[in-house]
């Protein structure tokens, strides 16, 4: 049994974010983190590993700098890191990205008791598309928004969260599951894990390694293989500041209510 986990290194959009004058993101000024939902996916995999002793493989399509992230995941308990990296993969949208990651997973082969865990979505793009698209490319069933997972033999019972409640879904392995933060609390790296993480393998999969896979050709990967293109990007306008209502609590509250009444807002 193997568990694959897809992970992404993202700019920390919850912290300080700087936008260049031309409307692009100033990445140099931002910290990178492992995408939060992906850590829940890693934790889900490691919990099964604790119980069942299976192998956990973390895959990331990223520049070489993402090796650090994979080492950190190994220090948490992941067995093997895969860095899918190549100029040919650059500019991929979710369709092309899922094509490449699916090919990488398929290089290992998906056995009947294997599971793929993904985070629900990455905080940079917020698309939530790559997980389901990998599942489609690999012809696997998918369950998204997993808030609880119980495994019994080859059957998984998953609480799939909806906006107004949840549904309980039964699915058999092999399958792909996307994880939300309510699923678990990701563990920390262990001291021993940190000591050992540099001895564990990081496998590099570049274009040469994947090019013979049926899912990979020039028309389905990278910028040219992406069905969607960015037409324009821009920053949203800031709404102009209004007025500050001066005075102590009582005075300012009174003034505000009078102004709202005058505008017929209340």
């Amino acid at each position, binding site marked *: 049994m193997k568990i694959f986990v897809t992970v992404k290194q993202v*700019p920390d*959009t*919850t912290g300080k*974010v700087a936008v260049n004058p031309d409307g*692009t*993101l100033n990445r140099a000024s931002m910290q990178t983190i492992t995408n939060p939902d992906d850590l829940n996916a890693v934790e889900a995999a490691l919990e099964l590993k604790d119980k069942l002793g299976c192998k956990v493989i973390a895959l990331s399509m990223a520049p070489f700098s993402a090796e650090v992230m994979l080492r950190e995941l190994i220090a948490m308990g992941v067995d093997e890191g895969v860095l899918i990296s190549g100029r040919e993969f650059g500019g991929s*949208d979710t*369709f092309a990205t*899922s094509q490449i990651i699916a090919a990488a997973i398929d290089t290992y082969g998906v056995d009947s008791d294997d599971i793929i865990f993904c985070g629900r979505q990455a*905080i940079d*793009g*917020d*698309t*939530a*598309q*790559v997980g*389901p698209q990998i599942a*489609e490319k690999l012809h696997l*069933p*998918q369950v*998204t928004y997993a808030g609880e997972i119980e495994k019994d033999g080859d059957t998984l*019972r998953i609480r799939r969260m*909806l*906006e*107004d*409640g*949840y*549904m*309980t*879904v*039964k*699915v058999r392995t092999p399958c792909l599951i996307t994880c939300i933060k309510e699923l678990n609390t990701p563990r920390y790296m262990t001291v021993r894990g940190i000591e050992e993480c540099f001895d564990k393998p990081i496998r590099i999969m570049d274009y040469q390694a994947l090019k013979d896979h049926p899912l990979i050709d020039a028309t389905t990967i990278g910028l040219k293989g*992406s*069905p*969607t*293109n*960015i*037409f*324009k*990007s*821009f*920053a*949203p*306008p*800031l*709404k102009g*500041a*209004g*007025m*500050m209502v001066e005075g102590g*609590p009582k005075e*300012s*509250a009174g003034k*505000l*209510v*009078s*102004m709202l*009444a005058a505008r017929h*807002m*209340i």
Partner: protein
Amino acid sequence: MEFNSADISAFKNVWVFCEQRQGVMMPTTFELISEGRKLADELGVELWGILPGDDVDGIARELGGYGADKVLVYNSPLLKNYTTDAYAKILCDAVMTYKPEILLVGASNIGRDLAPRCAARLHTGLCADCTHLDVDMDGYVNFLRTGSNLDVETTRFESKLFDVRTNLKMTRPAFGGHLMATIVCPRFRPAMATVRPGVMKRRPFDAAGAERVELLHPEFSLSAEDCKTQVLDVVKAARKLVDLIGADVIVSVGRGIAKDIEGGIALAEELAEELGGVVGASRAAVDAGWISADHQVGQTGKTVHPKIYIALGISGAIQHKAGMQDSECIIAVNKNEAAPIFEIADYGIVGDLFQVVPELIAALRAEKAAR
């Protein structure tokens, strides 16, 4: 089935996936039908709904009242509850048969499960969680005039690669709302978009349209073997979820209630009640576990545009602003005069919300009493 998503001239009409749960149409469906009508008019084509479910003819006709010309209805016990496999098969098979040029899906937890699966199968592009859609170029440029930092007079909009006037322009926030991007899908059809609930305006209901709409029941094949997942039960949250999107007034709380969480929420509730509104929250308050996620306003929560939005102890992270900055009147109360929320507030009060809000409630009551 012969299907080539790159043969774009073979595709015509605008489609909306009509999401229902337990036989009740999701409100977003009406928003999407309304928006789809606009796009269909810009292209001079028909608007079709596609409605899978079990015994859902009764709710199909209403779609005509919001602008649908035709609705494809698929009834089967296998479609009673949403499963990825059954719904994806119905939707993809229908697209391959009828070839729509645009397909809109609500960005609900179901729509965002279904749409990417279908886009991958159909080999086409999908833009996630859109907040603005245009075909018409003038409409798009007008949108940018007020909705962006671009100088539209000096921006070039032509493209050598595709016809900007006929392609759907799908605009969405990214990077937590710091950036907006307009996405196109020029080489494949249908151009697919999931659309954020609560953003598109619902048209007034037109009874004549509901009379006129044509319901179609195409033949389809679907068996239990097609569905690799099985739904054991569907549970609605026992608690009534807060209706942020429909609210005229929202009073939201943030980190500023930390020193007395229960007291802060109680004050917000009291103020909301006085104004006939509901309580919202920032991501910080939800992440801290102070209030449930259905209250969350912002990029990862709900997008709202009430008449009055009151931010109590919310600093105004850009991801929060992305969800509320289109409110008609924004009022902010914050101890920190440098809080970014004041940059977009119509009225700002620098002060402790625990002191200001009781005074606001008192002043509102006095104002009402004086009328």
